[in-house]
């Protein structure tokens, strides 16, 4: 007799660990059930091990979950790969035969728990750079409200920029990188989030400031409810643009960027990416990653490195566009641990000569510096009732 609660727990475990991947793979028939069965018979031992790991890693009484790869995910993954390995035989029994390598490769393409994006992210980590628009200068001092007991929330600088969507005049100047080895490169896009967790003693709510900026082509005021960064899959960092859009070449890209109205930078969304990489699963990911628009890469004829280990696009003269990622300064939720970064961010920078080419093609006066600043205090969505 199977306990109904246990069954639901096993189901939830499978959905949490590999649900996205099964959905991406189009829910192969019988998979979810078979994996749930496999997890269910060992549910107690998996849970016990998970709890041991959890107790081992976290600080006593801390309510935050350390960002680790736990036994529940590990065991579910093992089940998935075992069930996946049986699929070829199941197909054969159903009368579907073919090249065994070909069949397995095509099944595995969707189901492999790929680590390449996490690795790229880690290889692109840098010490937090100072490069950012002049109006964000104040944000260089991280989470000032933590130390300063008299700090008035919200930060006045953030408050002043809330609702400002574009900068004009001197403030809209191109942001140039100050650090070697990218001195004088132009920053196409920038995103940084600073946040603290709510604590019970002393009682204080969780707080966050989100900063985004990016160059954009608007020809007029930007569309309502838009941001300075759009959203794209990460493919450009791993594949040549011709592999992503076979119809695209430099000439077409030139036409496209000369006429288009868009942000030049996009936040990377891994949602539809093979292997469903996620911040909270497998190897995890850095919170933010940026990518240039496809047309810009095509127009400049940039390509990833071989092998594509970092977020770097090159041409024959070396790196041309680079995404730098950072996670800095450690904080905790009032229980001395686990320590988590208070500041996470990324920027996208381009070599000056390439930027000049892009600027000349689009028209310097059509490129504006857009921004979005938000601040928030109180429980985050998905947190406990008191925001911890």
């Amino acid at each position, binding site marked *: 007799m199977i306990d109904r609660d246990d069954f639901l727990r096993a189901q939830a475990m499978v959905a949490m660990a590999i649900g996205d991947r099964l959905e991406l793979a189009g829910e192969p028939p019988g998979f979810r059930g078979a994996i749930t069965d496999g997890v269910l018979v060992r549910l107690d031992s998996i849970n016990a091990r998970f709890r041991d790991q959890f107790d081992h890693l976290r600080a006593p009484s801390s309510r935050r979950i350390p960002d*680790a790869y736990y036994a529940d995910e590990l065991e579910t993954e093992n089940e998935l790969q075992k069930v996946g390995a049986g699929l070829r035989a199941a197909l054969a029994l159903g009368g579907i035969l073919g090249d065994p390598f070909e069949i397995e490769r095509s099944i595995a393409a969707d189901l492999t728990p790929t680590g390449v994006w*996490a*690795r790229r992210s880690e290889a692109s980590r840098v010490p937090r750079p100072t490069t950012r628009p002049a109006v964000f200068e104040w944000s260089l001092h991280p989470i000032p409200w933590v130390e300063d007991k008299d700090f008035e929330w919200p930060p006045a600088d953030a408050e002043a920029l809330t609702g400002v969507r574009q900068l004009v005049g001197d403030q809209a100047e191109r942001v140039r990188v100050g650090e070697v080895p990218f001195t004088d490169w132009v920053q196409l896009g920038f995103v940084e989030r600073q946040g603290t967790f709510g604590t019970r003693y002393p009682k204080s709510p969780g707080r966050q400031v989100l900063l985004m900026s990016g160059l954009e082509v608007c020809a007029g005021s930007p569309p309502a409810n838009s941001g300075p960064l759009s959203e794209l899959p990460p493919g450009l960092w791993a594949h040549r643009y011709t592999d992503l859009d076979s119809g695209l070449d430099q000439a077409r890209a030139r036409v496209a960027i000369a006429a288009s109205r868009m942000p030049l930078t996009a936040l990377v969304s891994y949602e539809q990416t093979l292997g469903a990489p996620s911040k909270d699963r497998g190897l995890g990911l850095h919170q933010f990653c940026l990518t240039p628009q496809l047309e810009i890469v095509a127009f400049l004829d940039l390509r990833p490195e071989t092998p594509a280990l970092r977020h770097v696009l090159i041409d024959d003269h070396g790196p041309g566009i680079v995404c730098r990622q950072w996670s800095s300064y450690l904080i905790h939720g009032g229980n001395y641990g686990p320590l988590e970064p208070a500041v996470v961010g990324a920027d996208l920078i381009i070599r000056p000569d390439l930027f000049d080419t892009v600027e000349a093609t689009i028209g310097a006066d059509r490129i504006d510096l857009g921004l979005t600043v938000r601040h928030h205090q109180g429980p985050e969505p998905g947190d406990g009732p008191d925001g911890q």
Partner: protein
Amino acid sequence: MNVWLAELGFEDARVQTALEELLETQTSAADPIVVAALRMAAGSEWRRPNIDLEVLTRLQPEVGRTSQADAVLTSVANNIAASYDDQPLMYASETTKSVATADLIDAVVALGGSAFAVREARKDKDENNPSFDRRTDPADLLKVLESRQRPVLPAGRDGAISAARDYDNKDYRDDVGEARWSFDALVNAIGWRVLETTQSDGAEAGIELLDDVAREISIYSENLVFAAVGEGLAERCDDTTTGVNTVASYCLALAYTRIRGGGGWRNFAGRERADLWVTAYALDPYTAERKLAAAVGRTAQSNSVAFYGVTQAIISAFAAQPTASAGGTAIDCWNAAYDVLRVRVPGTPARGHHTYNPTTTPDKFDDLNDALATLAVASISQGMRADLRRALLAVTLLLTCRPSIAQTALVRVLEHPLDAARITWLLEVVRDCLPSGQLTDEMAASLMRLAQTDLLSVRVLAAEILAAHKKPVPVPPATEPAARVRLAFSQFVQEHE
């Protein structure tokens, strides 16, 4: 490495300590790439500017060989530099707070990494520091006045007891420099009275007075007064007929059992003050022994908290000065305790778990590199996602710059039963980074085995690598499908026919 791989997803303090020790001792000896990989594996909570500087400086000659290697070296330099960003902004006692140095930043830049500003460590405020000075409070004026004068003490026994009782009122904030709390005055007040009683009424009266005083002083306060009184008495016992030596011995043994060791955590004064016992024993073995035995007996009858530290203290004392009576050496204590300890200690206590056989010649250089590289690769067993990502960056560095050492290490690690995801992640690095034509036979054999496991992603990747390096690829075995999948697929096929 075995310890690490035995428990996937757990940290292990032993491995961490060994790894840090190796980084500190082998950084200049081993292959620079291997050391850098080991540094990446050291986890997010470890960084040491001087060692990082050496690691990065030694990587310098590796720059410029291939563009792939340069890219990885830059990533590693940036990542090590970025570890100096992990600076706590809130009070966190166990986290390293070391900051980067200018030399270190130069070394990062020399490898193609980013320059950065030094992140200063947060200054820890002293949380115990009282936020106001109590003496500036007018209500405490009386206390200020009081603290400047000594209490009036009656002569004889009553005076000694009053002095002890008064001193026990001392608050830890009270200034020992003030007349009221003068330690010397306390020792004089008690010591001379004990000496007087002993000389007039005999040793037993002296001991009785010491016991009376001891009752007035909390065992959790310092109790140093007994050591000082004992030493004072010991200096004044040239004449053994009066019994002062007996009282001094008793007083020092009393001090040894009352003063708390280990910074106050342990009962008995422990190894730090074994000298008290040695002096007490020299003055009068019989009295010292009896006093110690009585204190141990009382502890054994009291609550369980009081045991803590007593065994250690007794063994330390006997190691410094064994007793004449039977069973009074440190070894005897160990032997007597063995039957109890063997039940309490986890695992099976036995000598000969591991015998260290020193080698006659130094280890071969290659062995050192292989061992350190294996340890770096084995860091894939860790639990925290950030550590796992760094472990893979270490493997990337090894495979790109030292393919042969990397494969030796990978083969050793892959012999252990890892989970599907960890093997997949490792094999993905092999697929992406192993230079063409560099696949070793040993690694090929390992891949042959992995290409026939019952884990889909593992066998597909292993086959892919073998094919890419033009090696024979075994046909994947026909793994028995799960009943549900077989059923679902036969329905699926029927519906689509």
